[in-house]
Protein backbone atom coordinates (compact mmCIF):
# COMPACT_ATOMS: atom_id res chain seq x y z
CA UNK A 1 0.00 0.00 0.00
CA UNK A 2 1.05 3.55 -0.63
CA UNK A 3 1.21 4.29 3.04
CA UNK A 4 4.16 2.01 3.62
CA UNK A 5 6.62 4.14 1.71
CA UNK A 6 6.27 7.14 3.99
CA UNK A 7 5.70 5.61 7.35
CA UNK A 8 9.07 4.34 8.52
CA UNK A 9 10.48 7.66 9.71
CA UNK A 10 9.08 10.16 12.14
CA UNK A 11 10.73 12.87 10.06
CA UNK A 12 8.95 11.97 6.81
CA UNK A 13 5.64 13.51 5.74
CA UNK A 14 3.33 11.52 3.49
CA UNK A 15 2.05 13.06 0.25
CA UNK A 16 -1.28 13.71 1.95
CA UNK A 17 0.42 15.82 4.61
CA UNK A 18 0.33 13.31 7.44
CA UNK A 19 3.07 11.80 9.57
CA UNK A 20 2.14 8.16 9.78
CA UNK A 21 4.48 7.34 12.67
CA UNK A 22 2.49 9.67 14.89
CA UNK A 23 -0.73 8.00 13.86
CA UNK A 24 0.75 4.60 14.61
CA UNK A 25 1.76 5.88 18.04
CA UNK A 26 -1.85 6.93 18.63
CA UNK A 27 -2.86 3.38 17.70
CA UNK A 28 -0.79 2.16 20.66
CA UNK A 29 -2.90 4.36 22.90
CA UNK A 30 -6.07 2.90 21.45
CA UNK A 31 -4.88 -0.59 22.33
CA UNK A 32 -4.38 0.20 26.03
CA UNK A 33 -6.92 -0.50 28.77
CA UNK A 34 -9.83 1.91 28.99
CA UNK A 35 -9.78 4.99 31.17
CA UNK A 36 -12.57 7.49 31.80
CA UNK A 37 -12.31 11.03 33.15
CA UNK A 38 -15.09 13.40 34.18
CA UNK A 39 -15.45 16.53 36.23
CA UNK A 40 -17.97 18.56 38.16
CA UNK A 41 -17.58 22.06 39.48
CA UNK A 42 -15.56 20.94 42.49
CA UNK A 43 -14.15 17.52 41.63
CA UNK A 44 -12.34 15.72 38.84
CA UNK A 45 -12.56 11.94 38.75
CA UNK A 46 -10.54 9.28 36.91
CA UNK A 47 -11.83 5.74 36.56
CA UNK A 48 -9.81 3.04 34.82
CA UNK A 49 -9.79 -0.64 34.00
CA UNK A 50 -6.65 -2.47 35.08
CA UNK A 51 -5.34 -5.39 33.09
CA UNK A 52 -3.32 -8.34 34.30
CA UNK A 53 -1.07 -10.44 32.10
CA UNK A 54 -2.30 -13.69 33.61
CA UNK A 55 -4.37 -15.02 36.50
CA UNK A 56 -1.16 -15.39 38.50
CA UNK A 57 -0.10 -11.80 38.01
CA UNK A 58 -1.18 -8.57 39.62
CA UNK A 59 -3.11 -5.93 37.76
CA UNK A 60 -1.00 -3.20 36.22
CA UNK A 61 -1.19 0.22 37.84
CA UNK A 62 -3.09 2.75 35.71
CA UNK A 63 -3.54 5.81 37.89
CA UNK A 64 -0.62 7.77 39.33
CA UNK A 65 -0.35 10.61 41.81
CA UNK A 66 1.60 13.51 40.34
CA UNK A 67 1.12 16.10 43.04
CA UNK A 68 -1.43 17.00 45.70
CA UNK A 69 -3.64 18.62 43.12
CA UNK A 70 -2.97 16.56 39.99
CA UNK A 71 -3.14 12.89 39.01
CA UNK A 72 -3.06 10.95 35.75
CA UNK A 73 -4.58 7.85 34.22
CA UNK A 74 -2.64 6.21 31.40
CA UNK A 75 -3.46 4.20 28.33
CA UNK A 76 -0.82 2.62 26.12
CA UNK A 77 2.82 1.76 26.79
CA UNK A 78 3.12 1.71 30.57
CA UNK A 79 6.90 2.14 30.53
CA UNK A 80 6.58 5.35 28.52
CA UNK A 81 3.89 6.48 30.93
CA UNK A 82 6.20 6.02 33.90
CA UNK A 83 8.77 8.30 32.29
CA UNK A 84 6.16 10.98 31.69
CA UNK A 85 4.80 10.57 35.21
CA UNK A 86 8.30 11.08 36.63
CA UNK A 87 8.76 14.14 34.46
CA UNK A 88 5.45 15.61 35.63
CA UNK A 89 6.29 14.95 39.28
CA UNK A 90 9.62 16.66 38.85
CA UNK A 91 8.06 19.67 37.16
CA UNK A 92 5.47 20.06 39.91
CA UNK A 93 8.09 19.85 42.64
CA UNK A 94 10.38 22.22 40.79
CA UNK A 95 7.63 24.79 40.36
CA UNK A 96 6.78 24.48 44.04
CA UNK A 97 10.45 24.96 44.94
CA UNK A 98 10.85 28.10 42.83
CA UNK A 99 7.45 29.77 43.31
CA UNK A 100 6.23 28.20 46.59
CA UNK A 101 2.85 27.54 45.06
CA UNK A 102 1.21 24.79 43.06
CA UNK A 103 1.57 24.68 39.32
CA UNK A 104 -1.61 25.31 37.36
CA UNK A 105 -2.86 22.22 35.58
CA UNK A 106 -2.87 23.73 32.10
CA UNK A 107 0.75 24.80 32.49
CA UNK A 108 1.80 21.32 33.49
CA UNK A 109 -0.10 19.74 30.61
CA UNK A 110 1.49 22.18 28.17
CA UNK A 111 4.94 21.04 29.35
CA UNK A 112 3.99 17.41 28.76
CA UNK A 113 2.60 18.20 25.32
CA UNK A 114 5.82 20.04 24.43
CA UNK A 115 7.78 16.99 25.52
CA UNK A 116 5.67 14.83 23.22
CA UNK A 117 6.28 17.26 20.35
CA UNK A 118 10.06 17.02 20.64
CA UNK A 119 9.82 13.35 19.82
CA UNK A 120 7.85 14.02 16.67
CA UNK A 121 10.47 16.20 15.10
CA UNK A 122 13.83 14.72 15.89
CA UNK A 123 15.40 11.89 13.99
CA UNK A 124 16.10 8.75 15.97
CA UNK A 125 13.61 9.40 18.77
CA UNK A 126 10.29 7.69 18.65
CA UNK A 127 7.11 9.25 20.02
CA UNK A 128 5.83 8.22 23.45
CA UNK A 129 3.21 5.53 22.86
CA UNK A 130 0.94 6.61 25.68
CA UNK A 131 -2.06 8.89 26.13
CA UNK A 132 -2.65 10.54 29.48
CA UNK A 133 -5.84 11.68 31.09
CA UNK A 134 -4.83 14.44 33.51
CA UNK A 135 -7.24 15.31 36.32
CA UNK A 136 -6.47 18.35 38.40
CA UNK A 137 -7.87 21.06 40.61
CA UNK A 138 -6.42 24.56 40.90
CA UNK A 139 -7.54 28.16 41.45
CA UNK A 140 -9.49 28.02 38.17
CA UNK A 141 -11.48 24.96 39.23
CA UNK A 142 -11.52 21.31 38.18
CA UNK A 143 -9.82 20.27 34.93
CA UNK A 144 -9.67 17.27 32.66
CA UNK A 145 -7.05 17.16 29.91
CA UNK A 146 -6.08 14.52 27.39
CA UNK A 147 -2.57 14.37 25.94
CA UNK A 148 -1.63 12.60 22.72
CA UNK A 149 1.63 11.25 21.29
CA UNK A 150 1.19 13.87 18.58
CA UNK A 151 1.91 16.68 21.03
CA UNK A 152 -1.65 17.96 21.08
CA UNK A 153 -3.62 18.29 24.24
CA UNK A 154 -7.31 18.80 24.71
CA UNK A 155 -9.43 20.28 27.48
CA UNK A 156 -12.48 18.14 28.14
CA UNK A 157 -15.63 18.08 30.25
CA UNK A 158 -15.39 14.31 30.19
CA UNK A 159 -13.57 11.85 27.99
CA UNK A 160 -12.57 8.26 27.60
CA UNK A 161 -9.48 6.70 25.96
CA UNK A 162 -8.21 3.20 25.36
CA UNK A 163 -9.74 0.08 23.87
CA UNK A 164 -13.50 0.10 23.30
CA UNK A 165 -13.64 3.65 24.63
CA UNK A 166 -16.23 4.65 22.04
CA UNK A 167 -18.95 2.94 24.08
CA UNK A 168 -17.93 4.91 27.14
CA UNK A 169 -17.89 8.11 25.10
CA UNK A 170 -21.44 7.43 23.97
CA UNK A 171 -22.52 7.10 27.60
CA UNK A 172 -20.69 10.31 28.55
CA UNK A 173 -22.21 12.23 25.65
CA UNK A 174 -25.66 11.28 26.88
CA UNK A 175 -25.06 12.39 30.46
CA UNK A 176 -22.34 15.03 30.53
CA UNK A 177 -24.70 17.95 30.96
CA UNK A 178 -25.62 16.77 34.43
CA UNK A 179 -22.02 16.34 35.64
CA UNK A 180 -21.47 19.97 36.62
CA UNK A 181 -23.84 19.72 39.57
CA UNK A 182 -23.10 16.12 40.56
CA UNK A 183 -21.85 15.13 43.98
CA UNK A 184 -18.58 13.21 44.18
CA UNK A 185 -20.40 9.91 44.61
CA UNK A 186 -22.66 10.50 41.64
CA UNK A 187 -19.65 11.44 39.57
CA UNK A 188 -17.81 8.24 40.46
CA UNK A 189 -20.92 6.21 39.71
CA UNK A 190 -21.25 7.83 36.28
CA UNK A 191 -17.59 7.06 35.65
CA UNK A 192 -18.01 3.42 36.62
CA UNK A 193 -21.08 3.08 34.45
CA UNK A 194 -19.21 4.55 31.50
CA UNK A 195 -16.30 2.21 32.16
CA UNK A 196 -18.62 -0.75 32.33
CA UNK A 197 -19.67 -0.04 28.74
CA UNK A 198 -16.11 -0.77 27.59
CA UNK A 199 -15.98 -4.32 28.87
CA UNK A 200 -16.71 -6.95 26.23
CA UNK A 201 -19.56 -9.25 27.22
CA UNK A 202 -17.34 -12.31 27.45
CA UNK A 203 -15.10 -10.87 30.18
CA UNK A 204 -15.53 -10.31 33.92
CA UNK A 205 -17.58 -7.38 35.07
CA UNK A 206 -16.08 -4.55 37.08
CA UNK A 207 -14.74 -5.79 40.38
CA UNK A 208 -12.49 -4.39 43.07
CA UNK A 209 -9.47 -6.08 41.50
CA UNK A 210 -9.64 -4.52 38.06
CA UNK A 211 -10.99 -1.05 38.83
CA UNK A 212 -8.96 1.96 39.90
CA UNK A 213 -10.54 5.29 40.87
CA UNK A 214 -8.72 8.61 41.29
CA UNK A 215 -10.32 11.71 42.80
CA UNK A 216 -9.18 15.29 43.30
CA UNK A 217 -11.02 18.46 44.12
CA UNK A 218 -11.77 21.28 46.47
CA UNK A 219 -10.18 20.37 49.79
CA UNK A 220 -9.42 16.89 48.45
CA UNK A 221 -5.82 16.10 47.57
CA UNK A 222 -5.41 13.59 44.75
CA UNK A 223 -6.24 10.15 46.09
CA UNK A 224 -6.33 6.71 44.50
CA UNK A 225 -9.17 4.39 45.54
CA UNK A 226 -8.43 0.74 44.82
CA UNK A 227 -9.12 -2.81 45.97
CA UNK A 228 -11.29 -2.91 49.10
CA UNK A 229 -11.82 0.86 49.18
CA UNK A 230 -13.43 0.76 45.76
CA UNK A 231 -15.99 -1.86 46.74
CA UNK A 232 -18.57 0.60 48.20
CA UNK A 233 -18.67 2.47 44.90
CA UNK A 234 -19.01 -0.75 42.94
CA UNK A 235 -21.85 -1.74 45.25
CA UNK A 236 -23.65 1.49 44.41
CA UNK A 237 -23.39 0.42 40.81
CA UNK A 238 -24.79 -3.03 41.39
CA UNK A 239 -27.83 -1.77 43.24
CA UNK A 240 -29.11 -0.02 40.16
CA UNK A 241 -30.68 -1.59 37.14
CA UNK A 242 -28.55 -1.89 34.04
CA UNK A 243 -28.60 1.35 32.12
CA UNK A 244 -30.97 1.44 29.15
CA UNK A 245 -29.58 3.50 26.32
CA UNK A 246 -32.32 6.00 25.60
CA UNK A 247 -33.10 6.40 21.93
CA UNK A 248 -34.96 9.67 21.59
Amino acid at each position, binding site marked *: MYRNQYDSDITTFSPSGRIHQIEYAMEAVKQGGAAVALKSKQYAVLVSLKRSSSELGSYQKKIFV*VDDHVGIAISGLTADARMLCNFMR*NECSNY*NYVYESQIRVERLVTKVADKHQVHTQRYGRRPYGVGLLVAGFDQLGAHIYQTCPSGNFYDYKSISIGSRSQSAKTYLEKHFESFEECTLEQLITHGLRALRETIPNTDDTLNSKNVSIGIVGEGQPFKIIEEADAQPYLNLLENEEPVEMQTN
Partner: protein
Amino acid sequence: MSIMAYNGGACIVMTGKNCVAIASDLRFGIQQQTISNDFPKVYRINDKCFVGISGLVTDAQTLYQKLVFRHNLYKLREERDMSPRVVSNLLTNMLYEKRFGPYFTEPLICGLEGPENKPFISGMDLIGASVATDDFLVVGTMTPAMYGVCETLYKKDMNEDDLFETISQCMLSSLDRDALSGWGAIVHVITPTQVITKKLLGRQD
Protein backbone atom coordinates in the same frame (compact mmCIF):
# COMPACT_ATOMS: atom_id res chain seq x y z
CA MET B 1 34.23 37.37 61.00
CA SER B 2 33.45 33.80 59.92
CA ILE B 3 30.67 33.32 57.42
CA MET B 4 29.13 30.74 59.73
CA ALA B 5 28.77 33.43 62.42
CA TYR B 6 27.29 36.05 60.10
CA ASN B 7 23.68 35.45 61.11
CA GLY B 8 24.24 33.75 64.47
CA GLY B 9 22.13 30.99 65.92
CA ALA B 10 22.19 27.83 67.97
CA CYS B 11 20.60 24.38 67.83
CA ILE B 12 20.57 21.42 70.22
CA VAL B 13 19.16 17.91 69.78
CA MET B 14 18.81 15.42 72.63
CA THR B 15 17.46 11.92 73.03
CA GLY B 16 15.26 10.64 75.79
CA LYS B 17 13.37 7.43 76.43
CA ASN B 18 11.20 6.88 73.32
CA CYS B 19 11.37 10.58 72.56
CA VAL B 20 13.69 13.18 71.08
CA ALA B 21 13.83 16.92 71.49
CA ILE B 22 15.20 19.66 69.25
CA ALA B 23 15.62 23.29 70.22
CA SER B 24 16.87 26.44 68.53
CA ASP B 25 17.15 30.08 69.42
CA LEU B 26 14.95 32.68 67.77
CA ARG B 27 17.37 35.42 66.79
CA PHE B 28 17.96 36.38 63.20
CA GLY B 29 20.62 39.06 62.85
CA ILE B 30 23.02 40.54 60.34
CA GLN B 31 26.30 40.63 62.23
CA GLN B 32 25.62 42.80 65.28
CA GLN B 33 22.20 44.11 64.18
CA THR B 34 19.19 42.02 65.20
CA ILE B 35 16.53 41.86 62.49
CA SER B 36 13.99 39.42 63.94
CA ASN B 37 13.29 37.80 67.29
CA ASP B 38 10.91 35.21 65.90
CA PHE B 39 13.08 33.20 63.53
CA PRO B 40 13.27 29.51 64.46
CA LYS B 41 15.91 27.33 62.86
CA VAL B 42 14.04 24.08 63.29
CA TYR B 43 12.06 22.77 60.31
CA ARG B 44 9.62 19.90 60.08
CA ILE B 45 10.18 17.26 57.43
CA ASN B 46 7.45 14.92 58.59
CA ASP B 47 5.81 13.99 61.89
CA LYS B 48 8.67 11.70 62.81
CA CYS B 49 11.60 13.83 61.64
CA PHE B 50 12.71 17.39 62.33
CA VAL B 51 15.80 19.17 61.05
CA GLY B 52 17.58 22.09 62.71
CA ILE B 53 19.87 24.08 60.41
CA SER B 54 22.26 26.67 61.80
CA GLY B 55 24.71 28.83 59.92
CA LEU B 56 24.09 31.22 57.05
CA VAL B 57 20.34 31.77 56.90
CA THR B 58 20.03 31.99 53.13
CA ASP B 59 21.75 28.62 52.77
CA ALA B 60 19.68 27.14 55.60
CA GLN B 61 16.45 28.19 53.88
CA THR B 62 17.59 26.93 50.49
CA LEU B 63 18.81 23.65 51.93
CA TYR B 64 15.47 23.17 53.66
CA GLN B 65 13.51 23.91 50.48
CA LYS B 66 15.64 21.46 48.48
CA LEU B 67 15.12 18.87 51.20
CA VAL B 68 11.36 19.33 51.00
CA PHE B 69 11.59 18.92 47.20
CA ARG B 70 13.44 15.62 47.55
CA HIS B 71 11.14 14.44 50.32
CA ASN B 72 8.06 15.12 48.20
CA LEU B 73 9.47 13.18 45.26
CA TYR B 74 10.40 10.35 47.63
CA LYS B 75 6.85 10.28 49.00
CA LEU B 76 5.34 10.19 45.51
CA ARG B 77 7.55 7.34 44.36
CA GLU B 78 7.81 5.24 47.50
CA GLU B 79 4.37 6.07 48.91
CA ARG B 80 5.80 6.47 52.40
CA ASP B 81 7.58 9.11 54.48
CA MET B 82 11.35 9.35 54.73
CA SER B 83 12.73 7.96 57.94
CA PRO B 84 15.21 10.15 59.90
CA ARG B 85 18.16 7.93 58.96
CA VAL B 86 17.33 8.35 55.29
CA VAL B 87 16.96 12.13 55.69
CA SER B 88 20.38 12.23 57.34
CA ASN B 89 21.93 10.25 54.51
CA LEU B 90 20.28 12.42 51.91
CA LEU B 91 21.57 15.58 53.60
CA THR B 92 25.16 14.33 53.71
CA ASN B 93 24.88 13.57 50.00
CA MET B 94 23.40 16.97 49.17
CA LEU B 95 26.09 18.78 51.16
CA TYR B 96 29.00 16.81 49.70
CA GLU B 97 27.72 17.48 46.17
CA LYS B 98 28.72 21.09 46.86
CA ARG B 99 32.12 20.09 48.26
CA PHE B 100 34.02 22.95 46.61
CA GLY B 101 31.35 25.61 46.94
CA PRO B 102 29.43 24.51 50.01
CA TYR B 103 26.25 25.51 51.76
CA PHE B 104 27.44 27.33 54.90
CA THR B 105 25.18 25.37 57.19
CA GLU B 106 25.52 22.77 59.91
CA PRO B 107 22.35 20.71 60.10
CA LEU B 108 21.09 18.53 62.94
CA ILE B 109 18.56 15.78 62.32
CA CYS B 110 16.34 14.26 64.97
CA GLY B 111 13.48 11.85 64.84
CA LEU B 112 11.97 8.53 65.72
CA GLU B 113 13.11 5.65 63.56
CA GLY B 114 11.03 2.70 62.43
CA PRO B 115 7.92 1.10 63.87
CA GLU B 116 9.49 0.83 67.35
CA ASN B 117 10.07 4.60 67.30
CA LYS B 118 13.68 4.35 68.31
CA PRO B 119 15.19 7.81 68.98
CA PHE B 120 17.66 8.89 66.30
CA ILE B 121 19.82 12.00 66.19
CA SER B 122 22.66 12.97 63.88
CA GLY B 123 24.60 16.05 62.91
CA MET B 124 27.07 17.03 60.24
CA ASP B 125 29.45 19.75 59.17
CA LEU B 126 29.04 21.97 56.14
CA ILE B 127 30.40 19.42 53.69
CA GLY B 128 28.45 16.49 55.00
CA ALA B 129 30.70 14.72 57.50
CA SER B 130 28.06 13.17 59.67
CA VAL B 131 27.97 11.58 63.08
CA ALA B 132 25.11 9.83 64.80
CA THR B 133 25.17 9.52 68.56
CA ASP B 134 22.76 8.43 71.21
CA ASP B 135 22.89 11.37 73.61
CA PHE B 136 23.01 14.93 72.27
CA LEU B 137 24.45 17.16 69.57
CA VAL B 138 24.97 20.92 69.32
CA VAL B 139 25.70 23.36 66.49
CA GLY B 140 25.88 27.12 66.21
CA THR B 141 27.88 30.12 67.33
CA MET B 142 28.27 29.11 70.97
CA THR B 143 29.10 25.43 70.80
CA PRO B 144 31.74 25.54 73.59
CA ALA B 145 29.16 26.83 76.08
CA MET B 146 26.49 24.42 74.84
CA TYR B 147 28.77 21.39 75.13
CA GLY B 148 29.63 22.28 78.70
CA VAL B 149 26.10 22.65 79.96
CA CYS B 150 24.73 19.66 77.98
CA GLU B 151 27.44 17.34 79.32
CA THR B 152 26.58 18.41 82.82
CA LEU B 153 22.81 18.24 82.67
CA TYR B 154 22.26 15.29 80.33
CA LYS B 155 21.09 11.95 81.72
CA LYS B 156 20.18 8.84 79.74
CA ASP B 157 16.55 7.73 79.28
CA MET B 158 14.78 10.87 80.42
CA ASN B 159 11.03 11.00 79.94
CA GLU B 160 9.35 13.75 77.88
CA ASP B 161 8.99 16.26 80.68
CA ASP B 162 12.51 15.83 82.01
CA LEU B 163 13.88 15.98 78.49
CA PHE B 164 12.00 19.19 77.85
CA GLU B 165 13.33 20.70 81.09
CA THR B 166 16.89 19.67 80.38
CA ILE B 167 17.05 20.87 76.80
CA SER B 168 15.38 24.16 77.75
CA GLN B 169 17.86 24.83 80.55
CA CYS B 170 20.78 23.97 78.28
CA MET B 171 19.48 26.28 75.57
CA LEU B 172 18.72 29.25 77.82
CA SER B 173 22.04 29.04 79.68
CA SER B 174 24.07 28.90 76.48
CA LEU B 175 22.17 31.74 74.84
CA ASP B 176 23.10 34.04 77.68
CA ARG B 177 26.80 33.50 76.99
CA ASP B 178 26.60 34.48 73.34
CA ALA B 179 25.94 37.82 71.72
CA LEU B 180 24.85 36.38 68.39
CA SER B 181 22.15 34.03 69.62
CA GLY B 182 19.25 34.69 71.90
CA TRP B 183 15.89 36.40 72.01
CA GLY B 184 14.18 33.30 73.34
CA ALA B 185 14.05 29.73 72.09
CA ILE B 186 11.66 27.20 70.60
CA VAL B 187 11.60 23.54 71.67
CA HIS B 188 9.95 20.58 69.91
CA VAL B 189 9.60 17.28 71.77
CA ILE B 190 8.79 14.39 69.42
CA THR B 191 7.05 11.35 70.87
CA PRO B 192 5.47 8.40 69.06
CA THR B 193 2.02 9.93 69.42
CA GLN B 194 2.52 13.69 69.15
CA VAL B 195 4.85 16.63 68.78
CA ILE B 196 4.86 19.14 71.64
CA THR B 197 6.07 22.60 70.74
CA LYS B 198 6.87 25.28 73.32
CA LYS B 199 8.37 28.72 73.07
CA LEU B 200 10.74 29.81 75.81
CA LEU B 201 11.04 33.38 77.00
CA GLY B 202 14.65 34.19 77.82
CA ARG B 203 16.62 37.37 78.16
CA GLN B 204 15.48 39.58 75.27
CA ASP B 205 18.88 40.80 74.29
